[in-house]
């Protein structure tokens, strides 16, 4: 979940509630769903919250929500904007991997150090969330006075910058935190930040680049140039965003504009003009930021049904307004409906249910009286689950200690340590799977579903049988009293192209007897007792299996079908698991008892 660091003094100042002490602020924040996690060295609150209200990623946004909660503000607020002076041209050299741009100018700021830090934090947090680590949207903030707009040939006074592409070793600029002129490719290899974001442009012929009349000044989404670096002396800012989706960067821009408006800045629009041939948006002309209010209709009945209470229309309008929304009641197709105005920073409102949720929060969900739904249904266990429980009861009754092991394991444990040959991994052409690969014709020997990016080298595949896990428990418990007669009814799987998912999943009964004198006969007597209990016929014709001693190994045949294996475990396997006592074991498909 995202966290945001918020200076309590800034909160008091921005909400206009100098009287609130830290404790009260923490309570009010909790009521908003912002959980206090601790404090930074500078005494800022560290707040954690669910990633829906991304407009609360800055102290300015949190303060706005608090003012609604306090009742200081009601309804929708939209900052005023001035007409555009600047234009962003997008030309046909723009990389197709990152075709979109947006922007705004903010004037008349007087940012102190904390306010500047808050802006930087908002930028980072937006990158981490909506921006998907800058892949989907990346923000650049520049000191406007350092930009020089081209003066076009005609009489227009508009100034402009150009979003385009640059050869990796083309034009150079001095990136932030550096003194050297670098080409974009050099930034990726020689600059610490370049290194971090190099993956985002890897393999592209042209890298995203922004130019003004002087030249290249920004290399999104990697790094800005030093020339336009923002400081506490900056009064006017140029905010641009590039990305893979216009809506996403426009919303990120909106959230930044609201935050800077709260700091006393005057928002000024910017034109975005996509040239012909500039990719999917070619020919489009936009004016940004787009601060238009969205309208959605919500039926009164739907609100009452969802909350389970009767509500007065005026109260509902009040709840909407206290949530920073506008609402007007009218008669719609489904009785009373509300036309609800949603401010542009609300990126979380996709459907009217999201607005009902706001009403619920304003009403207070914990004010609702729980009631047990008057709905009658008949409960029951899944057949396989009943079978599993019955088989486990029987196993426990005949003296097995029940185990519960992981379904994930590594290949060596699953195959080699049980003397079973590891099937070769497919080379990715999908041609393998069923049988006849080395090792796949023995029980437990099939190809395992393999994890792409394993977290740990101990858990790289789904086990193909359960006996390896049982052997591991024996290995880890040699200091404990014997007999150790262990069993597990557990999940395993193997690659099987006849299945829709290409994976056959099953539950098997795996059991091992480990004590002085443990023999084939011991194992068979228990297996016999188990199979008898389910009214099935057991036969054990001799077979070979690399885990077991030759001549003391049999197929488990239940009602005429070969479903598993039983035998005395081979000394190699026993010694491999550091055991000093004989082990007799069996494993077979649980389904055979059905």
């Amino acid at each position, binding site marked *: 979940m995202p966290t945001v660091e918020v200076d309590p003094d800034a909160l008091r100042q921005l909400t206009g509630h100098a009287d609130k002490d830290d404790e009260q602020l923490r309570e009010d924040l909790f009521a908003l769903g912002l959980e206090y996690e601790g404090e930074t060295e500078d005494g800022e609150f560290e707040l954690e919250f669910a990633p829906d209200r991304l407009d609360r990623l800055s102290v300015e946004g949190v303060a706005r929500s608090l003012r609604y909660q306090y009742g200081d503000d009601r309804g929708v607020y939209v900052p005023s904007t001035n007409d555009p002076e600047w234009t962003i041209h997008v030309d046909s050299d723009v990389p197709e991997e990152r075709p979109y741009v947006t922007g705004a100018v903010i004037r008349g700021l007087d940012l102190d150090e904390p306010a500047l830090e808050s802006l930087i934090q908002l930028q980072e947090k937006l990158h981490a969330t909506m921006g998907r680590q800058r892949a989907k949207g990346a923000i650049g903030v520049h000191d406007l006075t350092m930009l020089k707009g081209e003066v076009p040939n005609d009489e227009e006074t508009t100034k402009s910058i150009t979003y385009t592409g640059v050869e990796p070793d083309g034009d150079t600029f001095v990136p932030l935190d550096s003194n050297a002129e670098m080409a974009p490719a050099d930034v990726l290899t020689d600059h610490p930040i370049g290194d971090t974001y190099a993956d985002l442009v890897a393999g592209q012929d042209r890298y995203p680049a922004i130019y003004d009349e002087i030249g290249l000044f920004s290399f999104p989404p990697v790094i800005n140039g030093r020339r336009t670096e923002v400081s506490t002396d900056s009064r006017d800012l140029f905010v641009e965003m590039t990305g893979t989706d216009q809506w996403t960067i426009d919303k990120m821009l909106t959230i930044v504009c609201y935050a800077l408006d709260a700091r006393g800045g005057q928002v000024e629009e910017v034109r975005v003009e996509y040239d012909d041939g500039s990719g999917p948006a070619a020919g489009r002309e936009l004016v940004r930021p787009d601060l238009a209010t969205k309208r959605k209709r919500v039926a009164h009945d739907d609100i009452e049904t*969802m909350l389970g209470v009767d509500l007065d229309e005026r109260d509902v309008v009040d709840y909407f307004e206290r949530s920073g929304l506008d609402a007007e009641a009218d008669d719609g197709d489904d009785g009373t409906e509300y036309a609800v105005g949603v401010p542009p920073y609300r990126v979380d409102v996709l459907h009217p249910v999201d607005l009902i949720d706001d009403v619920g929060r304003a009403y207070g969900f914990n004010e609702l009286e729980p009631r047990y739904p008057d709905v009658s249904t008949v409960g029951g266990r899944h057949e396989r689950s009943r079978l599993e429980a019955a088989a486990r009861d029987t196993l426990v009754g005949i003296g097995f200690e029940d185990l519960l092991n992981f379904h994930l394991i590594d290949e060596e444990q699953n195959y080699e340590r049980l003397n079973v040959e590891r099937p070769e991994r497919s080379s990715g052409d999908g041609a393998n799977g069923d049988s006849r690969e080395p090792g796949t014709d023995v029980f437990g020997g099939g190809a395992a579903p393999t*994890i792409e990016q394993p977290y740990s080298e101990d858990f790289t595949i789904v086990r193909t049988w359960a006996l390896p896990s049982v052997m591991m428990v024996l290995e880890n418990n040699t200091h404990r009293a014997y007999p150790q007669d262990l069993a597990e009814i557990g999940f395993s799987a193997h690659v099987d192209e006849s299945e829709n998912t290409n994976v056959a999943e099953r539950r098997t009964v795996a059991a091992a007897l480990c004590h002085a004198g443990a023999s084939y006969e011991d194992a068979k007597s228990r297996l016999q007792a188990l199979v008898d209990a389910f009214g099935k016929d057991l036969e054990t014709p001799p077979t070979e299996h690399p885990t077991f001693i030759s001549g003391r190994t049999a197929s488990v045949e239940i009602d005429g079908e070969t479903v598993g294996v039983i035998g005395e475990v081979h000394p190699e396997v026993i010694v491999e698991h550091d055991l000093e006592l004989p082990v007799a074991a069996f494993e077979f498909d649980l389904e055979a008892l059905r």
Partner: protein
Amino acid sequence: MKLPDAQVAVLEAASANEERTIDRIAGEADLDPTAATRAAFELEEEGLLAVTERTSSEVSLTEEAEEYVETDLPELRLYRAAVSLGADEEAVELGRVIGEAGLDGPAVDIALSNFARKAYGEIDSGEVTADPEKNADSDDEAAALDALAAGSAAYQSDVIIEDLENRGLVERSETTVRSVTLTENGVTALMEGIETAETVGQLTSELLTSGEWRDVEFSEYNVEADAEEPTPGRQHPLRRMAEQVKDTLVGMGFQEMQGPHVDADFWINDCLFMPQDHPARNHWDRFALEEPGAIDELPEDLVAAVESAHREGVGPDGEGYHSPWDLDFAKALALRGHTTSLSARHLSGEAMGELEPPQRFFSIEKAYRNDTLDATHLLEFFQIEGWVMAEDLSVRDLMGTFTEFYEQFGITDIEFKPHYNPYTEPSFELFGRHPETGEMIEIGNSGIFRPEMLEPLGVDCDVMAWGLALERLFMLATGAEDIRDVHGTLVDLEYLRSEEVTY
């Protein structure tokens, strides 16, 4: 007549004319007194012996009293010292008298209080005067102690004994003395001759079928001795907890779901209205499979409906995500990150055909997270997943259902914290008061499925759902502190063998 040998010995040691104490009988019969007593009662039941009981009370000296017999009572030492310092004529400073008497520690207090009680003189303003009329050599209590020490039975008046008892110098105890005499039948039996019955260790099938068991004596066992403990078959504690939760849910009308562990991302995420570029869907968090890579087939209509919900949203005022949506990505296989994939398969009709409301379903099956292992997190865990499908469900119904469920596990006082979840709205984190510590702790996640999830699945009523980790409930209920000690191959068999049974 055949009798067990202990009874024979007691019978032979008893007399018809003289009451003999059990101690004496035991001595003669070479039995320990307990065995002799038991044999005597058994013989009384058979009418061969009469047992009489007499209670006698005894007075014995305590350790403290034994010491005073040697050194004199402290108050007498005080009196003698006072007289020797002339306190019988003129008051003497207390400290001097105590010094002269050689008293210290608790003995000083004992001396002072009893000196006053027996009126050997007065103590006032730190000075002692001794009553010249008194005689320390004829103290009643001292005399009684001496007599008791000498073993004299002719003890003193009860009043004095009581005083001594109050001072903790004597203890009174009662003992029961049993004596036996032969009855007429006993004499007759002896005259007719009595044989000793043989003793047996193990009750055998032969003894039972021949009726011989009637004439044998069973040798005594040391029934208090420790016995070797068996290694019983036991169900795994976490498994037992799962069964308990299943029972509870079945009792509440829930039906169980099962389904694939390895599944297409479509069922795991797309059907749940999780955008394809959601951070939880990147390959670092999820268990994407390298082999096999993708599901063969997905229901076409459903795919189209789900894609449309992602792109356009549902309903006249709905809107979709501004995220890419790609069929290949949806078909990619992974170990399911939650068992909500089962809910999606059931709600869509894929698992068991179209469902008509009302329905309640649950599963307690494994989910997989490619994440750090620690005391409370495993790579695989059992997710309790449940949902209710009905017309017009409200947040109150959700609260009522979960309040009822958690009460079954002793967790009351539930709070619902509004939360965010891509596939439910409203969404709530559930907090409950820990039955032991009283803390409010997170016990699950819940919500009402969004229209963008339900509409493509073809569900046109409401569905509320919740989930939590079985391991979390287990740790709460049992106080287990490290889940790695419970679930997996690192388990200690000693733990499985000794963990208390829950029910």
